[in-house]
Each structure stands twice: as structure tokens, then as C-alpha cells.
């Protein structure tokens, strides 16, 4: 059986981090370009921060995807909380050194300092969800970056706590700090439509008027993750009505009622 247009549209909004799904928005692309420029500079650390769902992970993923062909770049989507494990993973990825036994910070520092690398060969480590690392661990990461033998791009949620971390531990070492924010109304519309058009869902892309996008923005506050969740649920409901009660979805625009229903379903509306 051929999948319906609503099913295809629904799958577009599966909350996955895939560099191929990255939607190029004007503001985000300029940020991305500035990040690319920063990486080329001899910086020790780049901080990427923003609220959850603002696209940090996608950003790192896109960056990793773009850089991997030209330089050594390693993306760690989930934090490696054990210290020994963290350094052993780095030693293996960066220098192809396998350690069966424990590898502490001092031993790893000796390894890093012993490696002679050209400036173009300095590896880039992308750490997502860095707010989960302990303060001590963050301090060791800072010391590692001081060796100038490794660069770090750290992505973390922007909360008061993270602000403190940024100020206290990285203020002097962070050369570049990039903030990601929620989408505006118009950006959200472009985001939704581009995402659908990438999957050849032109009909459903055209169903999103500014009015319906405004409502979605009001509900999600322009947060990409929440928007994905909401639209996934929305097309799920559309699929149901398509099968059981097509009269309810006969309009050429996205139904406000169904948007609200999907918001209730995803918990964006507390009803």
C-alpha cells in the first residue's frame, strides 16, 4: 500500500539528529558560517549555547558532517561521564592509541604533549550536552585545550547554571561564544515548509499558512524540537482522519482544531 502524503509528512518531523535533514535558515546559516570561520582560527574553545531544542545538536552534527572530509573532527553526542573512559576514547580517536587499563588525565596529557602536529592537523572535538560533564571534568577539558594540541566545540544548554560555568571556568579561554535561539514566526514557516519540500511533500507544505504557523509558533515558542513533535502528532491525526473521517480534513489549510489537538497530545497545551 502506498503511504499517504500525511504519513510522509509525519515522518519528516521525526525528532532525529541527521545532518542531511538540516534546514538552512538565513540566520542559522550566518551563525554556521561564523562558526566555520572561528574553527579555522587558532582558538582553544568555542562555546555553543542555547535553550533545549534550539538546534545545537543539529548544528554540531551539520558541522561535523561538513568538516569530517577536510579535517579530524570527532563528535560526541552523548557525554562520556567516566573520566578514564573519556580519555581512553579521545586517545583512540585522536591518536589511534588503545588503552586496556586505566588512563588518567596526567597520562593523557603526556600523550597529547608528545604528539607533534601541524596547525592544519589539530583535531576538533565536538562535545554535545556538555552541561552534563562535572566541573572537575570541565576543568580538565580546559587544561587540554590550553595545550593547543586539540580544539573543542562545546554545546550546552543555556541556563543560569551554565552561564556560571561559562563565566567561571571558560571566560578567559573561550574565544568564541555562539548563541542559538528559537525561530521567529517567519523562520518557523520557512523551516516547516523547507523540511516538507525536502521530502517532496509540496501539498502539505502549502497547507501551512502564516495564520497556522503563527499558532504553531505561539504553542511551541519557535522551538524546533517542540515544533517537530507537534507536527509529527499533527500529521498523525491527519492520517487518522484520512482513514476514518475525511470530512474533518477537507480544508486546504491546516486545521486550527487539529493543531490544538496535537498540542494537547504533545503536552504543549495543558487540557
Amino acid at each position, binding site marked *: 500500500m502506498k503511504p499517504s502524503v500525511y504519513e510522509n509528512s509525519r515522518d519528516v518531523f521525526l525528532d532525529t539528529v541527521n545532518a542531511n535533514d538540516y534546514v538552512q535558515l538565513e540566520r542559522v546559516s550566518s551563525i554556521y558560517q561564523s562558526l566555520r570561520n572561528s574553527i579555522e582560527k587558532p582558538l582553544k574553545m568555542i562555546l555553543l549555547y542555547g535553550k533545549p531544542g534550539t538546534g545545537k545538536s543539529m548544528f554540531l552534527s551539520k558541522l561535523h558532517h561538513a568538516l569530517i572530509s577536510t579535517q579530524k573532527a570527532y563528535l560526541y553526542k552523548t557525554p562520556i561521564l567516566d573520566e578514564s573512559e573519556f580519555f581512553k576514547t579521545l586517545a583512540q580517536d585522536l591518536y589511534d592509541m588503545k588503552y586496556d587499563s586505566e588512563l588518567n588525565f596526567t597520562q593523557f596529557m603526556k600523550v597529547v604533549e608528545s604528539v607533534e602536529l601541524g596547525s592544519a592537523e589539530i583535531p576538533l572535538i565536538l562535545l554535545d550536552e556538555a552541561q552534563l560533564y562535572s566541573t572537575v571534568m570541565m576543568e580538565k577539558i580546559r587544561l587540554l585545550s590550553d595545550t593547543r594540541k586539540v580544539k573543542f566545540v562545546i554545546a550546552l544548554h543555556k541556563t543560569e547554571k551554565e552561564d556560571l560555568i561559562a563565566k567561571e571556568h571558560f571566560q578567559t579561554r573561550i574565544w568564541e561564544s555562539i548563541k542559538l535561539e528559537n525561530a521567529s514566526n517567519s523562520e518557523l514557516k520557512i523551516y516547516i515548509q523547507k523540511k516538507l519540500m525536502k521530502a517532496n511533500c509540496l501539498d502539505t507544505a502549502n497547507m501551512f499558512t502564516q495564520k497556522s504557523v503563527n499558532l504553531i509558533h505561539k504553542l511551541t515558542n519557535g522551538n524546533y524540537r517542540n515544533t517537530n513533535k507537534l507536527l509529527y*502528532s499533527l500529521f*498523525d*491525526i491527519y492520517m*487518522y*482522519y484520512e482513514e*476514518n473521517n475525511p470530512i474533518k480534513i477537507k480544508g486546504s489549510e491546516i486545521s486550527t*482544531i487539529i493543531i*490544538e*489537538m496535537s498540542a*494537547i*497530545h504533545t503536552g504543549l*497545551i495543558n*487540557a
Partner: protein
Amino acid sequence: MLDIYDLEIRHKKYKQKQLAPYIAISASTAVVIASIAFFILYDFNSKIEEPQQQIVIQQSVAKPVTKDENSTSQNSTAKKEDIAVAQEAVVKPQPEIPKEEIKTTPIEEKKIEEKREEKVILSPSLNFINSIKSQTPPLAKKESSNNNVNKEVKKSLVETQKKQEEAVPATIENVKQVAKKQEVIVPAPPVVVEEILAPISKVDNKNNIDIKRKNNDEDDIKDVIKRFNVNHNPALSLFVAKRYYQSGEYEKAYNYALTTNEINNNIEESWIIFSKSLVKMNKKDMAIETLKKYIGHSQSSQAKQLLDDIQSGKFK
């Protein structure tokens, strides 16, 4: 798996919750508007009701006054008759008979009527001449330099008076003779009387002016009353009430103020005239009571002031 049915129910509840404040606001505004409208209407009704009660009281008061009015109207008719008869005596610019004469006792009126019956046509002219006679002596004393014409007139007047006195028991022939004599005099009086009136006006200008004004006022008032009877405009009845009050005819002023109040009970000036007239008619208590009731529903500062004046005795 989506439970659409449950989702639809939750959505309905959500919409109800969402609309609840709007419904509450619109309902509350509707209630507020309704209550405001009710209070406005309530005040309006109460304003109508209160004066109606007052009017009932006033109407009961008004009854005796209408009787008085009849008596005064009788006086006025008598006055009219006097004037008409006087006009028959060919003296055109005849001054009006003073009030004191109008307010004669019933016995005097009877005597006059008897005289009229006896003297048929000429008797009123005799009264007029008598009145002239009563006015002329002080003039003679005051103004020693009166001209000869005045003296002659005096003499002729005295003579005619004497003749008239003699003529009272006389026969019809005598009356005719007197009439002939008067006919002889007739061409003279219009001129003579005017000349006599001139010194009178010098001595007592106020009386003369008042009389003229009264004549004008009466014409005006009659005209206004006619108009009022046609269109029942409270402004006209108020005008009449004010004029009567100014001219000291407080009972009439009272009646017209009352009529005005019956037509429109919100005219402050009418209530003021009404109360003032009551005071003038020695019904001070009723005036105070009326004013208090009026102040109760109108908060009129003018009425309050008048009430204070009446209570303190400033206004009598």
C-alpha cells in the same frame, strides 16, 4: 497510537476553558450594563413618582385658592365693568381705579350697584368725577400757581357734583337736564382731564406708571394665557406665574406655578415661584414642606437657599 476520541473530548474542554473568561467578561459587562440601565430607569421613575405625590397635596391646597380666584375674578369683572362704564363717560385716557377702590366692601359694592340701577347710564361717570374731586384738592393746596383753566374746571366739577347730588332724588327730566349739561361739558373733559392728569402725574408718578404697566401686563398675560390654553407649554404657564408673582397676585402665581409643575415637574424656577407664592399667602409651613420634598429629589441649590431664607425669616 492516538486516542482521537479522547483527544477530541480534551480539545472540547480546552476550548470551553479558553472561552470561559470571554463568556464571563461578556456576561459581567451585560450585567453591568443592565444594572446601569435599571438604575437610570429607576431614578427616572422615582423622579416622576415623587412630584406626583406632591401635586396631590398641592391640588388639595389649590381648591380654596380657586375660590379666592373666583372672588378676585369677580373683583376683576367688577373692575372691568367700572372701566367700561367709565369709558361710556367719554373719557378715553382714563386711569385705572386704584386697588383700594377695587377691594371695596360688599356693602359699598351693593350701594354702587343700586346707584347704577338708579342712575342708569350716568352714575359711573359721577364716580369718576368723584375720584377726580378727591384727588384735586391737595393739588390745589400744593400748587398755588395753578392756571385759571384748572380753577374753572374745579368750579365746574364742584357745580356738577352739587347738581348731581341734587339730581339723585330728581325725576328723569332732571336727569336729562343733567345729561344735557354734561353733554355740554363733554367736549371739554378729554382735554381738561388730560391737563388735570398732568399735575397728578407730577405728584404721584409711580401710581401712573404702575397702572400703565399693569394694563400692558394684563394684555400680555391674557395673550400668553390664550396661547398656553392652546399648546399647554409649561414655559408659558411659568411666564404667567412669574408675572403674577411680580405683580403681587400670589394666588394666581401659585395656581400657574402649580399648573406648570403638573405639566413638567423638573422646572426649578416654577417650584421656587410656587413656594414663594405660598409664603406670600401665609402658608409658610406648606412652602417649607414643598421645598424640602423638591430638594429631596432634585438637590436644587436655589431651592435650598430659598428654604434657608424662609426658615430664617429673611424671605417673608
